[in-house]
């Protein structure tokens, strides 16, 4: 199976509470919290589409969209 290729991260800013779980536990340090304490994607080129941010987000605020 080919490696999944990142299309984009879908972020729901209204639902994100800035707990930082996705930021701290991302194996590739793709994410950071912005000045409003909401998740933002700063290094999308490093994303390996493991979806751990999506699975661990307690607020359903981040989704990893991959190319079909």
């Amino acid at each position, binding site marked *: 199976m080919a490696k999944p290729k990142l299309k984009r991260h879908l972020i729901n800013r*209204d*639902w994100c*509470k*800035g*707990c*930082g*779980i996705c*930021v*701290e*536990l991302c194996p590739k340090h793709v994410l950071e919290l912005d000045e409003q304490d909401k998740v933002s994607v700063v290094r999308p080129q490093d994303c390996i589409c493991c979806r*751990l941010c999506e*699975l*661990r*987000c*307690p*607020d*359903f605020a981040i989704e990893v969209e991959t190319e079909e």
Partner: protein
Amino acid sequence: MAVKDYLRERFFPHLWCPGCGHGEVLGGMIRAIERLGLKKNDIVMVSGIGCSSRIVGYVDFHTLHTIHGRALAFATGVKLARPELTLIVPMGDGDALAIGGNHFIHAARRNIDITAIVMNNRIYGMTGGQFSPLSGINVSATTAPFKTIDKSFDIVELARAAGATFVARSTTYHAQHLSEVIEKAIRHKGFSVVEVLTQCPTYFGRKNRIGDAPEMVKWLKDHTTPVGSKAKQENPELIERGIFVDIEAPEYCEEYSKLVERARGGSR
């Protein structure tokens, strides 16, 4: 269907604190249900009282938000009346094992086909951080300013001894595993218990200086090990995760329908 198709999106963002693990358990549960291909109308989710019990408000299934500790009793009633439905009962540690301790052991004893998910954050969050029967020794809580001296239950051993036919434990660090064991628990015919070690950063984490939510999630990684691992022999303090019990035994609703058949046959 996507995860959001199972949610009542109008109630989001949910009421849980930033970093609370309950939302992740909800996600794991929904992904399990999605993989099982269950219809929303065939699922009944019953809860009691507490932070964890607010989970039923957010899912687009048949839901009952009942009284403290008695969710399993209500679920037993629903299951006996409509055995074809899938019953899932999410509970907190206090709801399941303090207030509802008796309902918990007796549901396990009967082996009724219900999936109980105990979200164990070792504290009563909603009422302000009192210690629970799962807090364990040497824990700070608002009701234990000089730390606890009470031993905690081992949910896995308790459920096993009470007669549950499927018992597993996972954590919010192990998101993939969490969803997989919930899937197996729902598929299991009989009473299944999944203990999920989760984090309450607002009360447990702050009072016990474990750190913020990400630190608490990492704590769960560092303090658990797969069941039967060598690490456990070297360090008995580690908490095991995995599937502990998975056996077949007569299921309560099936036995009850046989009893009804027998009684009808006898009266003719």
